[in-house]
């Protein structure tokens, strides 16, 4: 009998605890869970996919907002980057309880908009918050449109750029009188520069990640390929128009830097590539602008500039933009939208904090400010925002998509010398054709 009474005691204690928990959680999800009621108007649910340094900066911007708006309870949620994030946003929208506002890459916002998961934005309404065309980077503003309607408010542009070690480049005689890197445009500019750097470091001229990495190879390839005037996808992804000659030329050039030329390592992953540059063992580093914090922390003597125009066509560099989108919701009224746009405005007003992480702010009032002009190396490459080239439109394209994965893995194999350029191109075409032939599910 004794163990029974002890167990009864435990059971009672457990029940008391549980009911206490249920009672104390006055803001509890019970009502939502049983009756499907959404949260109140005073709450602002915001989702993003920003990790690392970006995440830290975003949190401090959110804190500033929360301090200025004590009446609004901001619920910010960070979810894992890439496909899982967009899956989550889609499912939440389908489930009728999306966040009030979410970050999306512009390349992905297009897809979400096509799928009918985003609310189109009313330009007259936006104008009241200062969100007008002339206040945003032109390319980003254009990309924020899908089928003629605006769906996103751009926060930044993050292009693929070239980092260079100022100490090494100075010793190699690559800097001009003002301490900036000389123009390396042209077919031999970069190669010669790397050779000069190699004489200084005794190791590598530059470094780019390609092992266990697909996005970086795609970004460096596409930047150069677009400079040649090439296109990969046409007709919303229903056609593959990869120009084999141009693609092979770019791949051959990249291989001449890595596997063939040994100017760059041909077996290095993202982390190791970053470390190599941070520790001064390579003069150049190719990546998106977001690694700036890493090198500032590591006290690497570095600066950044645009990727050289190797082939002499119209300048282009691969880029994407973070933007604010409003997932479709039946329960969002003008009052709520005002809160949301107020929040977005607050984020844009804090562009200085955001630019600290390397991204080029899309908010023109800040871009033109003196404060930004003083930010170095950030403002040194700001002009490339206008030459930003987004991935071609398709339901399977965009940042972190299947498209980037397919192209990036073949290009990565060329960079590491496992695949010849001539073999890589048909592989890309064959795999993408399967997607092109699949009717768009949007």
């Amino acid at each position: 009998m004794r163990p029974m009474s002890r167990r009864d005691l435990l059971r009672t204690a457990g029940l008391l605890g549980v009911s206490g928990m249920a009672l104390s959680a006055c803001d509890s999800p019970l009502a939502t869970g049983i009756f499907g009621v959404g949260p109140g108007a005073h709450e602002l649910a915001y989702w993003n996919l920003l990790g690392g340094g970006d995440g830290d900066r975003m949190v401090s911007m959110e804190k500033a907002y929360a301090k200025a708006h004590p009446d609004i309870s901001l619920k910010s949620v960070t979810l894992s980057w890439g496909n899982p994030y967009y899956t989550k946003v889609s499912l939440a929208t389908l489930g009728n309880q999306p966040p009030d506002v979410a970050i999306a890459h512009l390349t992905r916002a297009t897809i979400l908009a096509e799928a009918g998961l985003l609310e189109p934005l009313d330009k007259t309404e936006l104008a009241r918050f200062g969100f007008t065309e002339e206040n945003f980077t032109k390319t980003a503003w254009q990309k924020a449109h899908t089928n003629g309607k605006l769906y996103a408010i751009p926060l930044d542009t993050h292009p693929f750029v070239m980092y260079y070690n100022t100490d090494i480049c100075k010793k190699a005689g690559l800097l001009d009188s003002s301490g900036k890197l000389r123009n390396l445009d042209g077919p031999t500019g970069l190669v010669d520069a790397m050779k000069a750097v190699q004489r200084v470091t005794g190791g590598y001229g530059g470094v780019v990640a390609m092992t266990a990495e697909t996005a970086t190879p795609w970004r460096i390839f596409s930047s150069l390929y677009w400079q040649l005037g090439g296109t990969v996808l046409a007709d919303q992804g229903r056609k593959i128009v990869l120009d084999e000659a141009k693609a092979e030329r770019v791949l051959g050039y990249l291989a001449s830097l890595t596997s063939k030329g040994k100017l760059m390592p041909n077996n290095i992953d993202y982390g190791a590539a970053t470390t190599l540059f941070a520790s001064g063992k390579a003069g150049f580093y190719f990546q998106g602008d977001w690694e700036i914090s890493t090198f500032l922390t590591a006290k690497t003597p570095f600066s950044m500039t645009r990727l050289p125009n190797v082939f002499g066509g119209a300048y282009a560099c691969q880029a994407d933009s973070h933007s604010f989108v409003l997932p479709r919701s039946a329960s969002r009224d003008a009052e709520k939208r005002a809160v949301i746009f107020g929040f977005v405005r607050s984020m844009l007003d804090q562009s200085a904090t955001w630019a600290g992480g390397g991204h080029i702010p899309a908010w023109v009032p800040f871009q033109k400010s003196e404060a930004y002009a003083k930010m170095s190396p950030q403002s040194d490459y700001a002009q490339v925002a206008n030459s930003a080239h987004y991935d071609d439109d398709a339901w399977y394209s965009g940042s972190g998509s299947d498209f980037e994965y397919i192209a990036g893995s073949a290009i990565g194999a060329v960079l590491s010398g496992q695949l010849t350029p001539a073999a890589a191109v048909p592989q890309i075409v064959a795999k993408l054709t399967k997607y092109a032939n699949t009717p768009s599910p949007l």
Partner: protein
Amino acid sequence: MATSTTSRTPAVATPARTKPAARRQIVDAKARWFNGFCVSVLVVFAVIWALPLVWAAVTSLRPEGEIAVNPAAWWSGSWTFDAYAKVLGTGDIQNWYLNSFVAAAVTAILAVVVCSMAGFALSQTKFRGRRWLFALIGAGLVIPPQVLIVPLFNEFNTLHLLNTYWALILQALPAPPIAVFVFAAFFRGIPAELAESAHVDGASWFRIYQGIYMPLTRPAVSAVFIFQFVWSWNNFLWPLLVMTNTRMMTLPVGLSQVSSAYGIHYAQIMASAVLGALPLLLVFVIFQRRIVEGVATTGFK
């Protein structure tokens, strides 16, 4: 399935193994050495098995700065509950506890009620179409619920039940319908005379089910309840799909989806892992025997 109910109390099993006659015969040097060897192997494995959880707990109690300097240390100069305070301070995890608890409890209670009624009807009443129904429900045993995520999501979406507890409860009840068969097997073990004499006394079928059969099936009730609860509490894929509002997430989904917000704060990540593991571990420690019997009697997961 119902055979091992007799071994419920360890008292039945223990006297047999300590029979002095058998013991004395094997106690020689060789046997002692062999016993020692067995014990050491077992202890080594026990240490390996305990290690991940213990290490998670240790890490969660160390200051972040110390972990950054020496991540693999087992001791801390200054133990702290900071990480727990931070994780609990966001307020999300309390919601997730509540969601998991409500969904798991309602699922488990409904499973016991609904499945025992069905099990009783199928095993004790001879209604027309019984065999046909038995086969239909039996066929459900081979349908893994994972196969159904796509049509089920569409269905719950159409019914506007996403982000409600009903999405979790209604999906979990019939998939798979093992509980019905567990109950049916138990009811078959109950002497039919009991029901017959109750009939004579004018009791209705429902009264017989509720007043006679259910009280006699407590091992099955607790086994089904515990397993449906644990299974529901730990279910992942389906809640991941249907509970997308962060306030509505269950514990496993919330922990896995939102943890990236902690960045690389290892103590906080481990604290959230420990907080996630704690409720069922406590329940398990308290009801260890019940749960282990549950596994043994029903053998399903």
